[in-house]
């Protein structure tokens, strides 16, 4: 069955159960050709199961996964036009770097000429900047280098889709940032679809052009990184992606305000529908400004100040609402103007920055 589509990957009503336990259910997802999509969620949310169903290591219990328009039900991993970068690299320890990278090409039938395999292997190694390492043993390579070998071993086959299972989790912070940039430029260069599984929201937001947030076996929101961050559709997404202050509140009927738990009433943001009742407000720390102005809507006491290099993070005990996190960009504030712990301070923010969810 073919579906006329420009989607490289499609999930249609996919569910996967182990015994009576559902790992994922009701998954519908379309990944356009050449996209960089991130499956983001806490551990156990089913993101890896989805990736493994694309790779062919798991078969869906219900529904179907399509790759390049073809239904993949029952097609084993070794007949799928996708390649995976495994979380712990899964390099073959008894083969050297070159043999690892050439492994996939050597399995292809009809056979590829040895010279062609050698050329493409060298090309892939150079692409991940390991040109001079062809004859090295795997255990002689550092973690970051092993990561690149795993990457080269997958891209050398020019797959339709490259699957990445938490590929950067084992690297230190500096190396991780460098690899993020490298992966991104590699993806643009190759023009193939990347599917990345990660629990690191920063990684998902910075690398991908489509983020698919998952929780408890379901997709909870799909969108661009900006949409996910700026317009979370649920408290879960607001909470999981980026830092968030949660404030208990009540939506009053009609044109009435949103009343925070401490009794302060604020104008409703445009997106809030009219349903009255208990609600939860999510507010990003960087949406709040600290002001020395007794007239601001919320007042509090600074309890901690944490220096983060380019920004400063405050903990503020807000009267009647508890602890708030406030982030201030250092460029926008004067050194001498930093609020001190113990200082009484006002909190100011645009009510439209609030995300309101029914509780």
């Amino acid at each position, binding site marked *: 069955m073919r579906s006329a589509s420009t989607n490289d990957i499609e999930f249609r009503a996919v569910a996967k159960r182990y015994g009576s336990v559902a790992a994922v259910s009701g998954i519908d997802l379309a990944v356009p050709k050449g996209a960089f999509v991130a499956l983001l969620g806490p551990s156990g949310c089913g993101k890896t199961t989805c990736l493994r169903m694309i790779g*062919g290591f798991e078969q869906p219990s219900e529904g179907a996964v399509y790759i390049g328009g073809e239904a993949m039900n029952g097609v084993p991993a*070794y007949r799928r036009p*996708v390649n995976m970068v495994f*979380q712990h690299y*899964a390099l*073959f*320890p*008894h083969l050297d770097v070159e043999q690892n990278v050439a492994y996939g090409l050597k399995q292809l039938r009809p056979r590829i000429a040895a010279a062609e395999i050698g050329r493409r292997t060298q090309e892939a190694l150079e692409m991940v900047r390991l040109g001079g390492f062809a004859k090295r043993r795997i255990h002689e390579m550092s973690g970051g280098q092993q990561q690149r070998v795993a990457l080269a071993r997958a891209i050398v086959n020019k797959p339709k889709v490259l699957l990445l299972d938490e590929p950067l989790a084992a690297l230190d912070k500096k190396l991780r940032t460098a690899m993020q940039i490298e992966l991104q430029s590699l993806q643009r260069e190759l023009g193939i679809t990347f599917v990345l599984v990660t629990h690191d929201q920063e990684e998902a937001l910075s690398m991908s052009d489509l983020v698919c947030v998952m929780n408890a076996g379901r997709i909870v929101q799909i969108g661009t990184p900006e949409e996910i961050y700026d317009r979370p559709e649920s408290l879960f997404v607001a909470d999981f992606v980026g830092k968030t202050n949660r404030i208990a509140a009540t939506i009053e009927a009609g044109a009435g305000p949103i009343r925070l738990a401490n009794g302060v009433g604020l104008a409703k943001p445009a997106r809030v529908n009219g349903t009255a009742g208990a609600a939860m407000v999510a507010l990003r720390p960087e949406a709040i400004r600290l002001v020395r102005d007794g007239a601001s809507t919320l007042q509090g006491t600074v309890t901690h100040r944490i220096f983060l290099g380019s920004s400063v993070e405050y903990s503020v005990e807000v009267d009647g609402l508890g602890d708030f996190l406030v982030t201030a960009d250092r460029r926008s504030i004067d050194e001498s103007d930093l609020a001190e712990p113990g200082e009484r301070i006002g909190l100011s923010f645009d009510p439209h920055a609030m995300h309101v969810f029914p509780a």
Partner: protein
Amino acid sequence: MRALISSVYLFLYAPIALVVLFSFNAGRSASEFTGFSTAWYGKALGNSFLVSALQNSLMIAFTSAVLAAVFGTMAALGMERLGPRTRALFDALLAAAIVVPGVVIGIATLVALVALFSFVNPALAILWPGERPPQLGLGYGSIIAAHGLFSMALVTMIVKARIAGLGRDIVEASSDLYATPLTTFRLIVLPQILPSILAGFLLAFTFSFDDFIIAFFVAGSKTTLPIYVFASIRRGVTPEINAIATMVLAASLALILSARLLMREKKSKSGE
């Protein structure tokens, strides 16, 4: 305390040391060293009964170890795929098979074989188209079967341990890189478990080569080296016997050491 420990080790190793020492004795005595000589080695190797027993032992050890290595590896690979409960059961059975005393294995194998022959031989007599139907009986075949069966448990244990350390992900990676299950086995799994299969083979060989008890029960009229040694000892311990024992000792130690080396090398590699 130290004296006690020393005496224990003395008790363990002094007899073996004496056997080695007296194998080089120039005289006939097994209690009085009269000079160094390798004459008894020459005499032992010139003894046609001994040489044929040695050949039997080598043939039996090799055949049973090959069978054990092949089927033991297959069993280990198969057990990987069992569910956790069935696997626990087979693990227990495997461990039990190794601790069953040789006497029991000997008797059990003998009884089983005799029962089998009493069933198969009459059937063969009826079904055989030719004049003289073959008669199955105790002999090389039964020793190989008994040794192979026991050693299989040994090989399975060793190979299983290696497979467990292999990790599922390199098998998946191979499959992801277009290799069929058979190719994955040939290119990825086999090269990594080969040292443990070889180690199992060597241990199986050593076990069969040294075994007296089981072989004694099922050998029928055939003679293996340990059976020959046992029989000749009844005519008194000669330096010739010492020479044989020393050779067997050297061969066994060499085999077991190689097996250990094979297993250790893999362990240090996977520990990286």
